[in-house]
């Protein structure tokens, strides 16, 4: 069963002269154990695709299913709960609160969701795997770009989500860090059975993905 499925998705912004058809009849599905990469230039509709997939906005037409359940009827509060429990967002920046240490970012999650998060040994091994176990008492402002992004990934994985949606997660990283993040996404898919969807124009991630899609002018196609 697809963990995340988009059927015949259309998204239109504005009307009459300002009408823009951003997504055109998009069909997409992602399984467990899969690292899906969605490539496209700026303005192609990548971010809109990601926000609809994550339930942050509604499509003009079409249906989004998460773990087989349609989400269009969910209230705003239920969508918050869905994202908190099942979907993790990793963005290009602003992922971490600047006045909380890396460790306190996890405490904040505990304050909101006190069940189903990683236990301390799982968190320790995740931080070790990400190479940031020594940085738990540091504030985001004291970390490099790569360290910040790895801490953001750890923060996103802390709620043990089944789906990880990432928007340009490697945009500000050097090639070594891109390799690390790419390998991490791949291992999360294979070893922890996560469904990973990354939208980006960064071709350096291509080697790590199981499936590669391309969005151009609002249309999506699977690259062979």
């Amino acid at each position, binding site marked *: 069963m697809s963990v995340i499925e988009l059927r015949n998705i259309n998204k239109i912004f504005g009307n009459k002269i300002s009408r823009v058809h951003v997504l055109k009849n998009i069909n997409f599905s992602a399984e467990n154990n899969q690292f899906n990469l969605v490539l496209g230039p700026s303005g192609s509709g990548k971010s809109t695709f990601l926000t609809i997939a*994550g339930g*942050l906005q509604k499509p003009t037409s079409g249906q989004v299913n998460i773990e087989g359940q349609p989400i269009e009827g969910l209230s705003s509060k239920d969508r918050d709960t869905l994202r*908190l429990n099942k979907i993790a967002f990793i963005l290009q920046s*602003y992922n971490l609160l600047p*006045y*909380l240490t890396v460790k306190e970012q996890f405490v904040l999650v505990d304050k*909101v969701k006190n069940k189903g998060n990683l236990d301390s040994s799982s968190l320790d091994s995740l931080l070790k795997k990400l190479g940031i176990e020594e940085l738990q008492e540091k504030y985001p402002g004291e970390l490099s770009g790569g360290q910040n992004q790895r801490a953001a990934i750890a923060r996103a994985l802390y709620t043990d989500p089944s789906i990880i949606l990432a928007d340009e997660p490697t945009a500000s990283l050097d090639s070594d860090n891109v390799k690390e993040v790419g390998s991490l996404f791949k291992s999360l898919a294979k070893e922890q059975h996560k469904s990973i969807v990354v939208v980006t124009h960064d071709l350096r991630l291509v080697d790590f993905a199981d499936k590669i899609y391309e969005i151009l002018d609002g249309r999506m196609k699977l690259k062979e």
Partner: protein
Amino acid sequence: MFLALKEIKREKLRYGLIISMIVLIAYLIFVLTSLALGLAQENTQVIDSWHIKRIVLDKDSDINLSQSLITKKELSTFKLSRKDAYIGQASIVVKSKGNKKESAQFIGLDKHQFIFKNIKLLSGRKAASNREIVVDEQFKDDGYRLGEKVSFNSFSGKYQIVGFTKGAKLSVAPVVYGTLSAWKKMQSSRSDFKASAVVSQSSNFKAANSQLKSYSSGKFINQLPGYSAQNSTFTFMIAFLMIISLIVIAVFLYILTIQKIKNYAVLRAQGIPAKILVIATICQSAILVVSGLIIAALLTILTAVFIPTAVPMSFNLPILLSVAVGLIITGLIGALIPARIIVRINPISVIGE
């Protein structure tokens, strides 16, 4: 609370400056409230000490004790009980050798009536003759001594201070208690005046003469020269300071929230409910205001300890506490604008950046 405390701890300088602003505003409000209260008390202290409910004045006096003179004939139909008393009031300047002149309010009393009987002495005794007076403690603070002989304006003769009393001020001037006979001698134009007013501790006391009118003590106090204007001025100043504190808190929290809006958008995208962020903002406002109030209260206590007694300030705990509660409410209202921004944050705004 977690987010609120962590942010304040991390951004000490920023929040320290906001707390300093709140301290200054709260301290100013406390001091002005105490000053307003002190001045109000010095206007009415002696009247409050009599615990009167009604006062009868000449109906043409414009509810002004200084302008009221009541004749024996007008009072002939009055039958006074032990809850009623005559008072004769005159504005005087007290002079003595070696001491500075003091503007004062002379209150002539009948020694058989309740006001005279209820005078609380700090030292000395009550007046036994027309040439003896009991004066407010301000005279003592200004160097006057028991047994000292003083004169009033251009009135002939000397009066001897035989006692000091506490909390006897009328229209911000110290009171000189003497006898009604002494007061009568000051009214040289006519000899048939009996008193300036009749006061009563009974709420049913009525003027038994068409030339006289009975007023409630509240109405009489409000008509004291300058009393209402002064209270209104202070009330407006305190209200404006409250509004300023509301704006200061709202503006600072608004700016801080705007700076955090992208982080909050990401948190919202990650499913953190807006309620958590709104509560953090309201807690932050409460922490800032309460911290500011605690420091301002300490400064106010220091002021109360070191301020000279001549400054008419009265530090009334219940009133200052209610002002503090008012400021906390103001702070919480100030947090509503940033709270509204947080509720309206669109998590999509940060995706694609």
